[in-house]
């Protein structure tokens, strides 16, 4: 009995764990935390700054800022309706070009390419990402534009019945004379931006595809799947989150692309859904075009446009990260 009592006196308690952090550990924690907080703070400050600077213009325009198409801050008649639509159109063309190209490239690199080829291709794609955007802009303006115009003419002739491919003002009796109608278009700007976002999307997709578990691949092969079957049933479903995330990141970059678009487009301040027609606009190129000669109110209006783009990009990136986080592959990417 006495033995039992003695045992009962010692109550079963978990040992108190005392966390002792030594100096290097604490230092490292502090540095890492400071880094994270700083990034958040900078984002917040950028947003606040834009909002403060944009306030006079937004106050003046009110809700019509989102419905007005014209951009004439001096005449107090300005809004982002046309500019935002233009931005989205260019980005959509870019994504439409870049995503299929990226998926194919990433699949080739991870699934089909021999080792040597793989290395070379990865290097080239990294190089593509390193080319400054002004170089893409120069290429688009001096090289691509004049060569793409006949292609646009062909598309307009054969697919002109589809509304977005319609081009107004074409003189069919004198086709050469209307070639300039097909320059400086949303399509050309979108193509150039598409070239710029391809490497970003490709490297994210490649990373995800390379993490497909070997066991699942072998399982599919063991069940008699062909290579294409493995890709269709294992690789693509596993990489879905990464593909969406990569596309969204590319879209975010396409929305903000400035200098290449600035060099190619001929600005238009009405909603212009005809992507082959001369005339396009984007928020960032509008800012670049008008910044130097804007007076203080014009600057405020530009800031308001910038704020709109900032918020839009933020939303898209958040959406992208939530999609990536929810998917299987996203956990590791």
């Amino acid at each position, binding site marked *: 009995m006495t033995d039992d009592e003695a045992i009962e006196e010692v109550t079963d308690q978990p040992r108190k764990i005392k966390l002792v952090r030594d100096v290097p550990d604490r230092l490292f924690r502090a540095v890492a935390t400071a880094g994270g907080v700083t990034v958040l703070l900078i984002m917040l400050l950028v947003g606040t700054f834009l909002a403060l600077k944009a306030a006079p213009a937004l106050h003046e325009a009110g809700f019509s800022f989102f419905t007005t198409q014209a951009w004439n801050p001096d005449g107090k008649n300005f809004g982002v309706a046309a500019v935002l639509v233009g931005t989205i159109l260019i980005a959509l063309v870019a994504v439409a070009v870049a995503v299929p190209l990226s998926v194919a490239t990433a699949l080739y690199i991870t699934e089909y390419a021999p080792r040597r080829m793989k290395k070379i291709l990865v290097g080239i794609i990294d190089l593509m990402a390193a080319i400054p955007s002004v170089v893409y802009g120069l290429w688009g303006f001096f090289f691509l534009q004049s060569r793409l115009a006949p292609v646009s003419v062909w598309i307009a002739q054969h697919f002109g019945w589809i509304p977005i491919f319609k081009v107004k003002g074409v003189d069919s009796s004198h086709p050469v004379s209307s070639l300039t109608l097909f320059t400086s278009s949303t399509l050309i700007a979108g193509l150039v931006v598409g070239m710029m976002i391809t490497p970003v999307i490709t490297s994210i997709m490649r990373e995800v595809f390379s993490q497909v578990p070997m066991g699942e691949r072998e399982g599919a092969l063991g069940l008699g799947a062909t290579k294409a079957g493995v890709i269709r049933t294992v690789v693509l479903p596993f990489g879905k989150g990464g593909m969406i995330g990569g596309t969204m990141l590319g879209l975010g970059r396409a929305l903000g692309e400035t200098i290449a678009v600035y060099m190619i487009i001929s600005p238009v301040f009405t909603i212009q859904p005809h992507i082959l027609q001369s005339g396009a606009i984007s928020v960032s190129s509008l800012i670049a075009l008008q910044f*130097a000669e804007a007076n203080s109110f014009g600057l405020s209006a530009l800031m308001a446009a910038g704020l709109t783009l900032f918020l839009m990009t933020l939303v898209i990136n958040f959406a992208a990260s939530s999609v990536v986080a929810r998917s299987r592959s996203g956990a590791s990417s």
Partner: protein
Amino acid sequence: MRSRHLSVLLLAALSGVLAVLVGPGLPPADASSYTPITGEGSSWAANAIDDWRASVVNSGIKVNFAPTGSVAGLTGYANGSDDFAASDVPYGIKGTTPGTPGRGFAYVPDVAGGTALMYNLSVGGKKLTNLKLSGSTIAGIFKGSISTWNDAKIKADNPGVALPPLKITPVVRSDGSGSTAQFTLWMKKEFPSVWTCGEVSFFTQCKNYDPTVQQAKSGDNGVAGFVAQAGNAGSIGYVEYSYALQSGYPVAKVLNKAGFYVLPTASNVAVALLKAKVNTDKSDPDTYLTQDLDEVYTDTDPRVYPISSYSYFVVPTALQNGFTSTKGATLGAFVDYALCSGQQSAPTLGYSPLPINLVKAGLAQVKQIPGAAAKNIDIKSCNNPTFSASGVNTLAVNALYPDLCDKTAATATCVYGKPVKGSTSSSSSGQSDNNSVGHHSSSTDNGSSPTTSGGSVPSAGSSPGSSASGPGSSSSGGASGGSNVVSLLNPDGKTACDADTGQCTALAATPVDYTGHEGSTFSRWAIWIAVLALFLIVIAPPAVVLLGRRSQR
């Protein structure tokens, strides 16, 4: 072991180099007398300002300048963040520039230039180089009311030329620019019935802007680059003349009040600006000291290029916003240089030198800068290429007159070679200019419209100091069998142009006289050492790693 040894050596070498670079520092040349000054503004005049800055730095005058655009310059000056500004447009243009600033200011003319109308047009398979346009036609083209090249109005300006039924694509600036402001000001003043948009900095804000009619491009380079693309036949754009020269494409001859079609050459612009005034009516603060070009537009001298204008410096007239009299001394010396000797380089850079009236007006304004050395610059020692040491306005006397074939109502069969006055005409059937101030010529003469029979170049070499066909001009238009290769050369004949893009590259830079100081050998060495150091920083780490790997094997 070996690799570590090597890296230590390299590190030592690097640190040595850095010590040399950072250590003693360069003794400033004559900086004792001049305080550095800062300005910003006009990108139109930036090439000239940069040239002057480089030239005066050896005298110890340090001028910082950022080509941020005219309106940005005016704003920066008004805020007090700049010591001076450069601008193509004055304060107080409604809806374009900020209102009159609170601090004292004066406008000083800095450099002049012509707004050229560059075009891309072929007639019968050959590049047209002798396009003539009257002002109202130009206004109609840019408004969009004249939409094809075979319009009756254009035909009337170019008798006998078989103009094609091609659509006209006017190319304008998409960004805010002083060129747009000056071009639209001219149209507004001269052709108010055609041009109803007024004076604007942003062409895209004009109600006449329609993206299916006009193409808007950023910067002079963007406009010139668009017009110069082979596929964009039928386009015409307005640019500073130097950009048209570089692109290798011809510019239109514009009708002046005397009834002559003239090119925007340095001489023609300088003659035009003899009539430019600085508005000295103090009663109206909005226009006080601004440029008054009304008489330029209506000048009846046959040599005048009507779309001529000049750009200003905005200089302080009071000690405010951190402007000190020592800074005033620097600014005064810099502006004095710019107005006199600095004008020598204007034609080479594609501008026009300021004529005597504007230099005199400018020098008078410089005296208002507090602290500027009160030296009365003798107009005789000014060294400006438009007037001589004796004060005679050489420009007005010597500038050649245009050819009678460039007069209105000249017949289609007119043969070039008879000037209005004198023995040599300044113009020919092509793009050449035979004046001694900023002369240039091109080989596009032979590509002129096929109906004007055999454009003859005026007798070569008879004008002082110039050769009619230019030293380096090679004719290639005829040789390449209808492939429309145009090789318009700059004054020195040292540029080559890509037939595809129309972009030109300088094969050799124009020589610049640079009187170096004795002490500059050290700085040259320092530059080389810095280059070497940078090279080492890039090359050394991978090299060390590579060597290390090898030695381990």
